[in-house]
């Protein structure tokens, strides 16, 4: 990056560290923090959407739809989520490739043969000859879908509870005003449920942040991957030889997560105060008194 860094073996002290921390691999490391943020930015709304649909389905008056919603909610309970993460990443990949093979392949043989999952080369996703970038992007996409499915179930659980928590009288009043079921849902239930859902959703957001290192298990080059790569001891064959520094890299990651969760906690506190405004809850009442 800098001219002084052209020959790392001849420099030392502060310059060495400056060059070390701006090496190409480190720049990749810094970008991988963006991968984590990108995952959060895509997953959080996706999981919220999945959760909203799940909760709405669970409340449906049509029995099969309601069962589907409830099974989805109960699915993730009782089973460690890491199992879902490991399962979905392979299962989704195989389902996608099998579905594609039905369209593009000539033979439609059952793909699970003996110890292999075999589809014709044209059905591979991404294709074997694709650039490395597409393999990474596909892996990331699978991870996002997996996160959205698993966290969607948790969000659905929270939102379902929140919808139940909205006082019945509010809904009955709306019905007395002649609103249809759809109108009651849109105008009364949804706006009021957020304050009941917020503690649960805030908790889930913190858990989502803390689940992001699992990207590493899903084969994405995330911050854990780089911390292990960069921290491992480097012999003289490398440009910047050093001992085993993984401890320091992981300490850095720990501090990153602590700061991130702390900021989130403060943000959620502020949001709770805002949403409590005008609500028929203890928090809302306290705000009203303070204002009056």
């Amino acid at each position, binding site marked *: 990056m800098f001219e002084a860094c052209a020959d790392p073996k001849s420099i030392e002290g502060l310059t060495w560290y400056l060059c070390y921390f701006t090496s190409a691999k480190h720049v990749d490391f810094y970008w991988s923090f963006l991968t984590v943020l990108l995952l959060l930015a895509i997953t959080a709304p996706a999981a919220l959407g999945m959760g909203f649909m799940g909760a709405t389905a669970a409340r449906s008056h049509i029995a099969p739809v309601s069962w589907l919603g409830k099974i989805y909610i109960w699915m*993730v309970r009782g089973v460690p989520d890491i*199992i879902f993460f*490991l399962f979905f990443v392979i*299962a989704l990949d195989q389902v996608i490739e099998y579905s594609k093979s039905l369209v593009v392949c000539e033979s439609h043989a059952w793909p699970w043969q003996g110890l292999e999952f075999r589809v014709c080369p044209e059905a591979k996703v991404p294709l074997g000859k694709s650039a490395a970038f597409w393999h990474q992007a596909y892996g990331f996409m699978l991870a996002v879908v997996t996160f959205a499915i698993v966290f969607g179930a948790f969000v659905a659980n929270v939102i379902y509870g929140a919808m139940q928590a909205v006082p019945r009288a509010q809904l009955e009043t709306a019905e007395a005003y002649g609103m249809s079921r759809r109108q009651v849902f849109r105008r009364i239930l949804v706006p009021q449920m957020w304050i009941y859902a917020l503690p649960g959703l805030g908790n889930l957001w913190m858990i989502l942040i803390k689940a992001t290192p699992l990207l590493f298990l899903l084969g994405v080059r995330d911050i854990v991957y780089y911390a292990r790569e960069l921290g491992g001891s480097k012999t003289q064959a490398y440009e910047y030889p050093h001992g085993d520094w993984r401890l320091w890299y992981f300490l850095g990651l720990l501090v990153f*997560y602590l700061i991130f969760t702390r900021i989130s906690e403060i943000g959620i506190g502020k949001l709770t105060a805002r949403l409590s405004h005008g609500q028929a809850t203890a928090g809302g009442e306290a705000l009203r008194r303070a204002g009056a």
Partner: protein
Amino acid sequence: MSMTCWETIQAYSLRSIGIGENLLPRSDFTICQQFTLIGSGLIWNLYFGILALVFGFFLANAVALARTARNPLIRKPAEWFVFVFRGSPLFIQFFLAYEALVLLPKEFMLFGVEINTSWTTRAWAGALLVLFLNTAAYSAEIFHGALKSIPKGDLEAAEAYGLTGWKKFIRIEWPTMLRLGWPAYTNEAIFLFHATTLVYFSGFPAFAQKGDALYYANYFADKTFNPFIPYPIVAFYFILLTLAVTFIYGRVNRRLNRHLPSNSRMKIRLRPNLIR
């Protein structure tokens, strides 16, 4: 070389602790093999979960009390302990602990006694330490919250009876804290068991292929390229484990609430708290 299911169970049911057949199955995988080996791995999940919970319970009580202390020299470290372990991913804590334990000097002399530290990098010790500290932090937060929500009237009644200090704590505050915190603590126990599946995926190596339930499920999924059998099996085992934990903690909960009329007892509700 085909074995009956009974022979498979004899060969592999204790494989995770190094008893029985040494070689894992390599081809012609049967459902029986998968059920047996994954079940065998569950021994480690039970080991980590039970020991971490038992030891963690005591530390959690101490930390929860320390958090209520007026002296900042006692309160601050407890607050930081809870903040660090609840604010960071367990996954990173495992990695960090492993790297730190590896860097410990292998042998050193303390008061003339030679101390060997290499065992601390093994999962049974190192991962257990992390899980113990982690659950202590989460439980301490639960107990601290429970301590703060003890009804004022109960404490005033205790004082009216002349109970003060330690006596008031051990007879009134502590049992009430346990009673109020127990439903949340039940969830903590369930999700601690779930968290034990992270051990062999986070730096701690499995020696001689001795791992937990998920380790073997992952082994089968890798070998057969078929995730649709081993992962549902391990999920099935964990549903059973969750039911067992709920049952045992429910019995304790009943005992803690035995003096109350049935309509004012604390109910246990399962709340999701997945990855920590």
